[in-house]
């Protein structure tokens, strides 16, 4: 022994070899600077609706501070089942087909761990949320990234999947409305994907956390397409539409066998989601139209503003149709997206996230979140125009 303990070698190789999220690196830089306008925040700027917060306090006073059923409070599961039936077009039995989780992040991890044997392949589309690839790897799966393109509105097509899918492919992951591109899928788009999933006998995991936030056309869920409900795990939560990110509350709906498998992993790792967060969620589901409707109207106005600002300054951007992200191309400035973002931050004190944080094919793009008030967006757009005006 030379006395120096090499801890690095003790770390699980999968964990060791996965890089930290590019978002994290960027956050470290931004957090050293003052007075930055951030278009880099992937969570709502709205406060959680007051009646939801107030009900959390009440739940605390009433002593709802104990373990709940592993699946979550039955009252909440019943309310979720109703909400999903009404808004997403699929029926789930609250007794055994709904599982309340610690955010969609946990639900996604549970779903993959419940399904994947070592080496099973998982198809997912990039650019995508930062955790997908890592979560697949942690579960022992083999990630197969499918690149979506700006010229296609970042939608997924059957041809893209066909090019990557093999007999070893077991799972297809979807996320629409999409973070970071703001893309959505129409019913026709989804029907083609659904047909493919059935033909190849794939299990679908659909992360629909931004479902309520669409601006020109209503959201369609793949679970509403005949035949898909029985091979799909539907994931949703309260973070985005109700601005409840810190509550960490999500849920999964799916066929009983799959939910049972996920519940086992959840039971032994998490036990249950926070009781207080669950009480708050019950309250949130009492008047979704009011709470969510107002926020959606505001996001739509900001989306319109930011899209028209990009057009005015000659920045190419596919029209963002959902979530609260715009994903303009900065390729014409002939520098990597990360360099663009760093220079913009250094020169104008505005934070945008380089597209490469969301997969290699995000190169040439930056993500601008419009989950910040309009005054900030106006100022940021003014600075962006000034910044690109000085670029060669």
């Amino acid at each position: 022994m030379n006395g120096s303990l090499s801890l690095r070698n003790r770390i699980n190789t999968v964990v060791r070899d996965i890089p930290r999220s590019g978002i994290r690196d960027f956050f470290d830089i931004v957090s050293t600077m003052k007075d930055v306008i951030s278009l880099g925040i992937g969570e709502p700027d709205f406060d959680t609706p007051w009646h939801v917060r107030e009900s959390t306090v009440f739940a605390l006073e009433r002593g709802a501070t104990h373990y709940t059923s592993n699946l979550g409070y039955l009252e909440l599961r019943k309310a979720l089942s109703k909400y999903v039936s009404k808004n997403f077009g699929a029926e789930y039995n609250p007794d055994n087909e709904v599982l309340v989780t610690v955010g969609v992040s946990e639900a996604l991890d549970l779903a993959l761990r419940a399904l994947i044997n070592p080496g099973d392949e998982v198809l997912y589309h990039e650019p995508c949320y930062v955790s997908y690839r890592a979560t697949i790897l942690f579960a022992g799966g083999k990630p197969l990234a499918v690149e979506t393109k700006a010229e296609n509105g970042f939608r997924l097509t059957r041809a893209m999947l066909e090019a990557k899918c093999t007999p070893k492919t077991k799972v297809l992951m979807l996320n629409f409305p999409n973070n970071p591109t703001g893309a959505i899928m129409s019913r026709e788009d989804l029907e083609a994907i659904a047909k493919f999933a059935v033909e190849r006998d794939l299990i679908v995991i659909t992360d629909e956390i931004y479902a309520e936030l669409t601006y020109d056309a209503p959201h369609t869920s793949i679970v509403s397409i005949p035949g898909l409900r029985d091979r799909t795990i539907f994931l949703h939560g309260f973070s985005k539409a109700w601005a409840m990110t810190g509550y960490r509350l999500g849920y999964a709906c799916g066929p009983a066998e799959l939910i049972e498998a996920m519940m086992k992993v959840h039971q032994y790792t998490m036990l249950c989601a926070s009781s207080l967060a669950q009480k708050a969620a019950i309250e949130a589901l009492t008047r979704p139209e009011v709470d969510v409707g107002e926020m959606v109207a505001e996001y739509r106005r900001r989306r319109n503003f930011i899209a028209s600002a990009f057009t005015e300054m000659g920045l190419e951007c596919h029209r963002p149709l959902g979530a609260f992200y715009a994903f303009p191309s900065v390729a014409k400035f002939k520098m990597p997206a990360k360099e663009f973002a760093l220079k913009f931050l250094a020169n104008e004190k505005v934070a945008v996230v380089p597209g490469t944080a969301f997969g290699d094919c995000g190169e040439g793009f930056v993500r601008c979140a419009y989950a910040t008030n309009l005054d900030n967006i106006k100022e940021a757009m003014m600075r962006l125009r000034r910044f690109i005006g000085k670029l060669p």
Partner: protein
Amino acid sequence: MDEILKLLQGNALETRENIAKQLNLPVAEVAKRIAEYEKTGVIRGYQAVLNEDKLDLDTVTAVIEVKVTPQREGGFNHIAERISKFPEVRSAYLMSGAYDLLLFVEGRNLREVAAFVSERLSPLEGVLSTSTHFMLKTYKRLGVLMHQDSPDERLSVSP
């Protein structure tokens, strides 16, 4: 309600151009509609929302409940409009319940408001009784919280 009105309610200084951008409308259309609202009296004015507690104004505001006798022609309108014309009356509403009119009255001090009630309001024909409450502190006015917003608690960059 027209979204233009909503935006103006939130910020009356918002430019026609910015409203147009947010609503995906031509600027001319926005300007036309606002002009129409001003002409037809839907928009009755534009005001700043002040936090008067910060101004050391030494003024007082009273909330006055008034019971009145409705008149044969015009019901409550005649007396309500008459009372509303006093410049001291900042707001006036017809109410259901134990009294008829609710007034927000401003004066330089307690005595001035008291004088208004005893010398101008109460002697009016049709006014039966009044009940005056003084306001102590304003927490929220016209939908605007008077204390400054707490700083953004969110991380500056997040996935």
